[in-house]
């Protein structure tokens, strides 16, 4: 459906270097990266707002690299949502159909139909600025879907919404996807969005697409330390392999994957307890620091000379009465230890 082939672009302080990937028809593809990685610029290149300095963009095998946006048959939802402020919700949704000179009656039917599915029928006569953030996002999605685009481009669509609205929209997005069977390219920095919506994900760091694959696959098997760090592996160790064990600084942990030079463990895979936990990797250590993150507390536990970061809930933090210098056990499964280069 969409093929991005070695696309390069420098624009203002952003740059993209030789980015290549493919989105198949019907697929939900996530580009995941921290802010400033060049994600928005990538979408703008695909939308035709900017043109690449090098490389090609193809849709259904047809080169669109230098086509203007209106000739690409895609819908773009920028992070700003960008509803037309001088038009009512109805006219916002109908805009794309009006440009195609579709008969008024047909437009009316289609707008009503899509408004019903997206649960915005009661908003059709309102002006955008009177809507809540979640409502605006629904209208933007309706406006994008109604033209039946080959591809829908979403730039951080849920970034400015509060947690409840966001999780509701995430759930509904999956329903709408089944209903409309659209193809999406969605850029975000949110793991939650990637995990709950994405079929495949491309990780973007510093303007490069560093790893592409099925979402779970990428999250479990980051190719290298940089990607692992971005994907939340806060415990990364360099050591040596001895049989099915990985040894670092006198600590020997059991691993299950194919052994490599480095291993990583997510802080949420580590259990902290005052009793010995029943797991295949258990160590005794000392709490040297803790940091309150709201619902979670991040502990730094020192085992010999190795520091582990672990998340525990606020409740168990209070129950265990954790103080600096306290002795605790940490445990994690061998299957939670991931190996990479």
């Amino acid at each position, binding site marked *: 459906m969409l093929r991005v082939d070695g696309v390069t672009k420098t624009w203002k302080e952003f740059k993209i270097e030789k980015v290549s990937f493919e989105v198949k028809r019907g697929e939900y593809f996530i580009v995941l990266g921290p802010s400033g990685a060049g994600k928005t610029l990538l979408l*703008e290149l695909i*939308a*035709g*707002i900017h043109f690449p300095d090098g490389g090609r963009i193809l849709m259904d095998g047809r080169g669109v690299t230098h086509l*203007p*946006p*209106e000739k*690409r048959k*895609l*819908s*773009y*939802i*920028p992070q*700003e949502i*960008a509803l*037309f*402020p*001088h038009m009512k919700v109805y006219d916002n949704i109908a*805009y*794309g159909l009006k*440009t*195609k000179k579709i008969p008024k009656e047909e437009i009316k039917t289609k707008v009503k139909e899509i408004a019903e599915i997206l649960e915005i029928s009661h908003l059709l006569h309102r002006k955008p600025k009177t809507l809540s953030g979640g409502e605006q996002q629904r209208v933007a999605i309706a*406006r*994008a879907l109604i*033209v039946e685009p080959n591809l829908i*481009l979403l730039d951080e669509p849920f970034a400015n919404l509060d947690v409840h609205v966001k999780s509701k929209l995430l759930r509904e997005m999956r329903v709408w996807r089944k209903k409309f069977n659209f193809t999406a390219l969605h850029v975000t920095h949110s793991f939650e969005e990637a995990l709950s919506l994405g079929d495949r994900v491309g990780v973007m760091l510093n303007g490069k697409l560093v790893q592409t694959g099925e979402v779970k696959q990428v999250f479990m098997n980051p190719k290298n330390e940089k990607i692992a760090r971005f994907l939340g592996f806060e415990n990364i160790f360099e050591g040596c392999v001895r049989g099915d064990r990985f040894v670092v600084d006198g600590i020997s942990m059991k691993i299950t994957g194919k052994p490599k030079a480095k291993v990583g463990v997510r802080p949420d895979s580590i259990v902290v307890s005052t009793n010995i936990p029943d797991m295949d990797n258990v160590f005794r250590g000392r709490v040297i620091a803790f940091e309150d993150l709201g619902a979670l507390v991040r502990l730094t536990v020192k085992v010999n000379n190795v520091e582990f970061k672990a998340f525990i809930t606020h409740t168990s933090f209070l129950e265990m009465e954790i103080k600096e210098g306290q002795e605790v056990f940490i445990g994690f499964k061998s299957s939670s230890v991931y190996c990479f280069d």
Partner: protein
Amino acid sequence: MRRKDYFDAFFALLGSFLIIYIVLPIALTFTKQAEELNLFFETIQDAVVLDALKNSLLTSTATAIVSLFFGIPLGYVLARKEFKNKSLIQGIIDVPIVIPHSVVGIILLTTFPNKILDSYLGIVMAMLFVSSPFTINSARDGFLAVDDRLEQVARSLGATKLKTFLTISLPLALPSIFSGAIMTWARAMSEVGAILIIAYYPKTAQILVLEYFENFGLKASMPISVLLIAISLTLFAFLRWVVGRAKG
């Protein structure tokens, strides 16, 4: 009373000087004229005066329309495009504001010696030169205030550049553009210097005031002055109100 209130009061006092300075002469002239109402009524029935007034209104309205026709595209380009020497272009637009208006008359007459002397065209050209910056600058500001994401979304939904301009950018910038056009119109209504040099005839009201003053003195030029103020202010206020409503 606290110290802060003295501060506010002091500034209000200083600030009101200019307001009073503007309002007082207008009010005074009106009051003086009210004492001699017959002279005023005579004037507004005078065919020469009415004709001059008609000329003023026609030429300034024409000027505002021409300034819109050329100013909107220019404002759009200035708002949306980056190009070499953009600041130079921006500077050129502000040039009419710094040239004395008599000089504007001289340079226009030098450039178009026979075509514009004593003609409607000459009046409109003089007015356009001195008043178009208002339309250009407010068109530019109007377009700048339109988020370019809106245009990008419209394009992605299938609208051509022209269609996007007509359905998104222009309607959103229109209140600002009209505010500028009203200023252009008002500035054209009040132009004297350049017109005096280029087109003494066809007689415009602002030139007639000058003529009456020079030939018959202050008292004779007062009724037509009052009339000009009344018409200009009323129309100006009305147009501003219309645009303000459209914005709100």
